[in-house]
Protein backbone atom coordinates (compact mmCIF):
# COMPACT_ATOMS: atom_id res chain seq x y z
CA UNK A 1 0.00 0.00 0.00
CA UNK A 2 2.67 2.47 1.09
CA UNK A 3 4.82 1.33 -1.79
CA UNK A 4 2.03 2.04 -4.24
CA UNK A 5 1.42 5.53 -2.82
CA UNK A 6 5.14 6.26 -3.03
CA UNK A 7 5.12 5.00 -6.61
CA UNK A 8 2.24 7.31 -7.52
CA UNK A 9 3.90 10.30 -5.86
CA UNK A 10 7.38 9.69 -7.25
CA UNK A 11 7.12 7.91 -10.60
CA UNK A 12 10.70 9.02 -11.27
CA UNK A 13 12.58 9.48 -7.99
CA UNK A 14 15.78 10.49 -9.82
CA UNK A 15 14.00 13.23 -11.76
CA UNK A 16 12.42 14.48 -8.53
CA UNK A 17 15.80 14.58 -6.77
CA UNK A 18 17.34 16.32 -9.77
CA UNK A 19 14.62 18.99 -9.86
CA UNK A 20 15.01 19.67 -6.12
CA UNK A 21 18.76 20.06 -6.62
CA UNK A 22 18.31 22.41 -9.60
CA UNK A 23 15.80 24.48 -7.62
CA UNK A 24 18.19 24.80 -4.66
CA UNK A 25 20.99 25.84 -7.02
CA UNK A 26 18.72 28.42 -8.64
CA UNK A 27 17.74 30.10 -5.37
CA UNK A 28 21.34 29.65 -4.12
CA UNK A 29 20.23 29.18 -0.51
CA UNK A 30 19.35 26.01 1.42
CA UNK A 31 16.47 26.63 3.85
CA UNK A 32 13.64 24.28 4.85
CA UNK A 33 11.18 26.46 2.93
CA UNK A 34 13.21 26.22 -0.24
CA UNK A 35 13.58 22.43 0.10
CA UNK A 36 9.80 22.17 0.55
CA UNK A 37 9.10 24.34 -2.49
CA UNK A 38 11.67 22.32 -4.46
CA UNK A 39 9.92 19.10 -3.43
CA UNK A 40 6.55 20.46 -4.54
CA UNK A 41 8.05 21.32 -7.94
CA UNK A 42 9.85 17.98 -8.03
CA UNK A 43 6.56 16.14 -7.58
CA UNK A 44 4.39 18.38 -9.77
CA UNK A 45 6.65 18.68 -12.84
CA UNK A 46 7.20 14.94 -13.48
CA UNK A 47 3.49 14.35 -12.92
CA UNK A 48 2.35 17.06 -15.33
CA UNK A 49 4.89 16.24 -18.04
CA UNK A 50 4.34 12.46 -17.84
CA UNK A 51 1.98 12.30 -20.90
CA UNK A 52 4.51 14.12 -23.10
CA UNK A 53 7.41 11.85 -22.31
CA UNK A 54 6.12 8.33 -21.69
CA UNK A 55 9.33 6.28 -21.95
CA UNK A 56 11.67 8.14 -19.66
CA UNK A 57 14.99 6.39 -19.28
CA UNK A 58 15.98 5.41 -15.77
CA UNK A 59 19.59 5.33 -14.66
CA UNK A 60 20.74 2.46 -12.55
CA UNK A 61 24.47 3.10 -12.49
CA UNK A 62 25.29 6.44 -10.86
CA UNK A 63 29.02 5.61 -10.60
CA UNK A 64 29.30 5.05 -14.32
CA UNK A 65 27.52 8.34 -15.00
CA UNK A 66 29.98 10.13 -12.71
CA UNK A 67 33.00 8.56 -14.40
CA UNK A 68 31.55 9.38 -17.83
CA UNK A 69 31.09 13.03 -16.77
CA UNK A 70 34.68 13.23 -15.50
CA UNK A 71 36.04 11.78 -18.75
CA UNK A 72 33.99 14.25 -20.80
CA UNK A 73 35.06 17.26 -18.70
CA UNK A 74 38.70 16.22 -19.05
CA UNK A 75 38.25 15.80 -22.82
CA UNK A 76 36.63 19.23 -23.06
CA UNK A 77 39.74 20.78 -21.49
CA UNK A 78 41.94 18.90 -23.99
CA UNK A 79 39.57 19.89 -26.83
CA UNK A 80 40.07 23.55 -26.05
CA UNK A 81 43.83 23.24 -26.26
CA UNK A 82 43.72 21.16 -29.47
CA UNK A 83 41.41 23.58 -31.26
CA UNK A 84 43.36 26.59 -29.99
CA UNK A 85 46.55 25.11 -31.44
CA UNK A 86 44.96 24.42 -34.81
CA UNK A 87 43.53 27.94 -34.93
CA UNK A 88 46.80 29.61 -33.96
CA UNK A 89 49.50 27.60 -35.69
CA UNK A 90 47.99 25.99 -38.80
CA UNK A 91 47.49 27.88 -42.02
CA UNK A 92 44.00 27.24 -43.40
CA UNK A 93 45.11 25.23 -46.42
CA UNK A 94 47.05 22.79 -44.20
CA UNK A 95 44.07 21.88 -42.02
CA UNK A 96 42.87 18.39 -42.94
CA UNK A 97 39.11 18.50 -42.43
CA UNK A 98 36.99 15.42 -43.03
CA UNK A 99 33.42 14.23 -42.84
CA UNK A 100 33.13 10.99 -40.92
CA UNK A 101 30.19 8.62 -40.53
CA UNK A 102 29.71 7.03 -37.13
CA UNK A 103 27.39 3.99 -37.18
CA UNK A 104 25.27 3.88 -34.02
CA UNK A 105 24.66 0.96 -31.69
CA UNK A 106 22.52 3.11 -29.41
CA UNK A 107 18.74 3.05 -29.77
CA UNK A 108 17.13 5.46 -27.34
CA UNK A 109 16.79 9.12 -28.42
CA UNK A 110 18.20 10.31 -25.07
CA UNK A 111 21.37 8.27 -25.47
CA UNK A 112 21.89 9.46 -29.05
CA UNK A 113 21.38 13.07 -27.97
CA UNK A 114 23.98 12.73 -25.21
CA UNK A 115 26.43 11.09 -27.62
CA UNK A 116 25.91 13.85 -30.22
CA UNK A 117 26.44 16.53 -27.58
CA UNK A 118 29.57 14.82 -26.29
CA UNK A 119 31.02 14.58 -29.80
CA UNK A 120 30.48 18.30 -30.33
CA UNK A 121 32.15 19.24 -27.05
CA UNK A 122 35.22 17.02 -27.44
CA UNK A 123 38.42 17.33 -29.51
CA UNK A 124 38.02 18.57 -33.07
CA UNK A 125 34.64 17.06 -33.90
CA UNK A 126 31.16 18.55 -34.41
CA UNK A 127 27.99 16.50 -34.92
CA UNK A 128 26.18 17.75 -38.00
CA UNK A 129 23.32 15.36 -38.69
CA UNK A 130 21.59 12.09 -38.00
CA UNK A 131 20.58 9.73 -40.78
CA UNK A 132 16.83 9.55 -41.47
CA UNK A 133 16.49 6.12 -39.87
CA UNK A 134 18.72 7.05 -36.90
CA UNK A 135 21.39 4.45 -37.60
CA UNK A 136 24.40 6.75 -38.03
CA UNK A 137 25.72 10.19 -37.23
CA UNK A 138 27.41 12.62 -39.61
CA UNK A 139 30.39 14.19 -37.84
CA UNK A 140 32.67 16.94 -39.08
CA UNK A 141 36.27 16.59 -38.05
CA UNK A 142 38.41 19.75 -37.95
CA UNK A 143 41.86 18.28 -38.31
CA UNK A 144 42.65 14.57 -38.47
CA UNK A 145 45.36 12.54 -40.13
CA UNK A 146 43.30 9.36 -39.91
CA UNK A 147 39.47 9.77 -39.97
CA UNK A 148 38.87 6.08 -39.21
CA UNK A 149 40.82 6.34 -35.97
CA UNK A 150 38.61 9.24 -34.87
CA UNK A 151 35.50 7.18 -35.57
CA UNK A 152 36.84 4.20 -33.62
CA UNK A 153 37.75 6.43 -30.69
CA UNK A 154 34.24 7.90 -30.56
CA UNK A 155 32.74 4.41 -30.60
CA UNK A 156 35.10 3.01 -28.03
CA UNK A 157 35.48 5.94 -25.64
CA UNK A 158 31.96 7.38 -25.52
CA UNK A 159 29.41 5.12 -27.15
CA UNK A 160 30.44 1.99 -25.25
CA UNK A 161 30.10 3.81 -21.93
CA UNK A 162 26.74 5.34 -22.89
CA UNK A 163 25.46 1.91 -23.84
CA UNK A 164 26.32 0.68 -20.36
CA UNK A 165 24.53 3.65 -18.78
CA UNK A 166 21.34 3.68 -20.87
CA UNK A 167 20.75 0.06 -21.79
Amino acid at each position, binding site marked *: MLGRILNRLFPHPQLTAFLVLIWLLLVNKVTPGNVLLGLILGIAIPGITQPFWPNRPSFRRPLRIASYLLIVIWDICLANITVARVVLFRPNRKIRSHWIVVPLDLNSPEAITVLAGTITMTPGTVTAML*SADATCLLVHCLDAADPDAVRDEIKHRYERRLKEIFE
Partner: protein
Amino acid sequence: MELLAQIVISALLVIAGIFGFLGSYGLLKLDDTMRRLHAPTKATTIGVGGVLIAAMIYFAVFQDKISLHELLITVFLFITAPITANFVAKAHLHRDVKPSELPPTGGKYGWAAYDSVSPDKQPIDTD
Protein backbone atom coordinates in the same frame (compact mmCIF):
# COMPACT_ATOMS: atom_id res chain seq x y z
CA MET B 1 45.81 32.34 1.83
CA GLU B 2 44.28 35.50 0.38
CA LEU B 3 47.32 36.05 -1.82
CA LEU B 4 47.13 32.49 -3.09
CA ALA B 5 43.44 32.92 -3.88
CA GLN B 6 44.18 36.15 -5.70
CA ILE B 7 46.85 34.46 -7.80
CA VAL B 8 44.55 31.56 -8.70
CA ILE B 9 41.65 33.88 -9.55
CA SER B 10 43.81 36.12 -11.75
CA ALA B 11 45.36 33.14 -13.51
CA LEU B 12 41.91 31.68 -14.23
CA LEU B 13 40.65 35.01 -15.55
CA VAL B 14 43.66 35.45 -17.83
CA ILE B 15 43.43 31.87 -19.20
CA ALA B 16 39.68 32.30 -19.72
CA GLY B 17 40.27 35.58 -21.53
CA ILE B 18 42.87 34.02 -23.83
CA PHE B 19 40.58 31.12 -24.75
CA GLY B 20 37.58 33.41 -25.25
CA PHE B 21 39.68 35.52 -27.59
CA LEU B 22 40.95 32.45 -29.47
CA GLY B 23 37.37 31.28 -29.99
CA SER B 24 36.44 34.57 -31.65
CA TYR B 25 39.70 34.69 -33.62
CA GLY B 26 39.09 31.17 -34.93
CA LEU B 27 35.66 32.24 -36.12
CA LEU B 28 37.36 34.92 -38.24
CA LYS B 29 40.37 32.96 -39.37
CA LEU B 30 38.95 29.60 -40.48
CA ASP B 31 37.46 29.65 -43.96
CA ASP B 32 34.55 27.22 -44.19
CA THR B 33 31.26 27.29 -42.26
CA MET B 34 31.73 23.80 -40.83
CA ARG B 35 35.29 24.58 -39.76
CA ARG B 36 34.22 27.85 -38.25
CA LEU B 37 31.80 26.03 -35.98
CA HIS B 38 34.67 24.32 -34.18
CA ALA B 39 36.25 27.43 -32.70
CA PRO B 40 33.31 28.99 -30.84
CA THR B 41 31.81 25.69 -29.60
CA LYS B 42 35.00 24.60 -27.89
CA ALA B 43 37.34 27.46 -27.07
CA THR B 44 34.46 29.34 -25.51
CA THR B 45 33.60 26.61 -23.01
CA ILE B 46 36.92 27.02 -21.21
CA GLY B 47 36.60 30.79 -21.65
CA VAL B 48 33.27 30.96 -19.83
CA GLY B 49 34.12 28.07 -17.47
CA GLY B 50 37.30 29.78 -16.23
CA VAL B 51 35.44 33.02 -15.43
CA LEU B 52 32.74 31.06 -13.57
CA ILE B 53 35.25 29.08 -11.48
CA ALA B 54 37.09 32.32 -10.69
CA ALA B 55 33.80 33.86 -9.56
CA MET B 56 33.08 30.89 -7.29
CA ILE B 57 36.50 31.11 -5.64
CA TYR B 58 36.17 34.88 -5.27
CA PHE B 59 32.85 34.66 -3.48
CA ALA B 60 33.99 31.79 -1.27
CA VAL B 61 37.23 33.48 -0.15
CA PHE B 62 36.52 37.21 -0.14
CA GLN B 63 32.77 37.50 0.38
CA ASP B 64 32.42 34.48 2.70
CA LYS B 65 29.46 32.99 0.92
CA ILE B 66 29.22 29.88 -1.17
CA SER B 67 27.75 30.66 -4.54
CA LEU B 68 26.68 27.74 -6.69
CA HIS B 69 24.85 29.64 -9.42
CA GLU B 70 27.98 29.32 -11.51
CA LEU B 71 27.74 25.52 -11.59
CA LEU B 72 24.25 25.84 -12.99
CA ILE B 73 25.44 28.26 -15.70
CA THR B 74 28.16 25.75 -16.66
CA VAL B 75 25.63 22.93 -16.91
CA PHE B 76 23.28 25.01 -19.08
CA LEU B 77 26.20 26.03 -21.28
CA PHE B 78 27.25 22.42 -21.77
CA ILE B 79 23.72 21.50 -22.73
CA THR B 80 23.04 24.43 -25.08
CA ALA B 81 26.39 24.78 -26.91
CA PRO B 82 26.17 21.44 -28.82
CA ILE B 83 22.53 22.05 -29.72
CA THR B 84 23.30 25.49 -31.15
CA ALA B 85 26.19 24.03 -33.13
CA ASN B 86 23.95 21.25 -34.42
CA PHE B 87 21.29 23.74 -35.54
CA VAL B 88 23.82 25.91 -37.37
CA ALA B 89 25.36 22.84 -39.03
CA LYS B 90 21.98 21.49 -40.09
CA ALA B 91 20.83 24.82 -41.51
CA HIS B 92 24.11 25.16 -43.39
CA LEU B 93 23.88 21.65 -44.87
CA HIS B 94 20.27 22.22 -45.81
CA ARG B 95 20.91 25.48 -47.66
CA ASP B 96 24.43 25.27 -49.09
CA VAL B 97 25.50 21.64 -49.38
CA LYS B 98 24.23 19.01 -51.82
CA PRO B 99 23.71 15.45 -50.52
CA SER B 100 26.29 14.24 -53.07
CA GLU B 101 29.02 16.22 -51.29
CA LEU B 102 28.53 14.23 -48.08
CA PRO B 103 29.67 10.67 -47.42
CA PRO B 104 26.86 8.08 -47.83
CA THR B 105 25.14 6.82 -44.70
CA GLY B 106 25.86 3.20 -45.50
CA GLY B 107 22.24 2.26 -44.77
CA LYS B 108 18.99 2.24 -46.73
CA TYR B 109 18.10 5.85 -45.97
CA GLY B 110 19.95 9.14 -46.50
CA TRP B 111 20.73 11.95 -44.07
CA ALA B 112 17.81 13.41 -42.16
CA ALA B 113 17.84 16.82 -43.90
CA TYR B 114 17.43 15.26 -47.36
CA ASP B 115 15.58 12.02 -46.80
CA SER B 116 12.69 10.87 -44.66
CA VAL B 117 11.34 7.61 -43.36
CA SER B 118 7.60 6.96 -43.22
CA PRO B 119 6.32 7.63 -39.68
CA ASP B 120 5.34 4.03 -38.94
CA LYS B 121 8.86 2.81 -39.61
CA GLN B 122 10.60 5.67 -37.85
CA PRO B 123 12.44 4.33 -34.81
CA ILE B 124 12.87 7.83 -33.35
CA ASP B 125 11.75 11.24 -34.55
CA THR B 126 14.54 12.54 -36.78
CA ASP B 127 12.68 15.42 -38.44
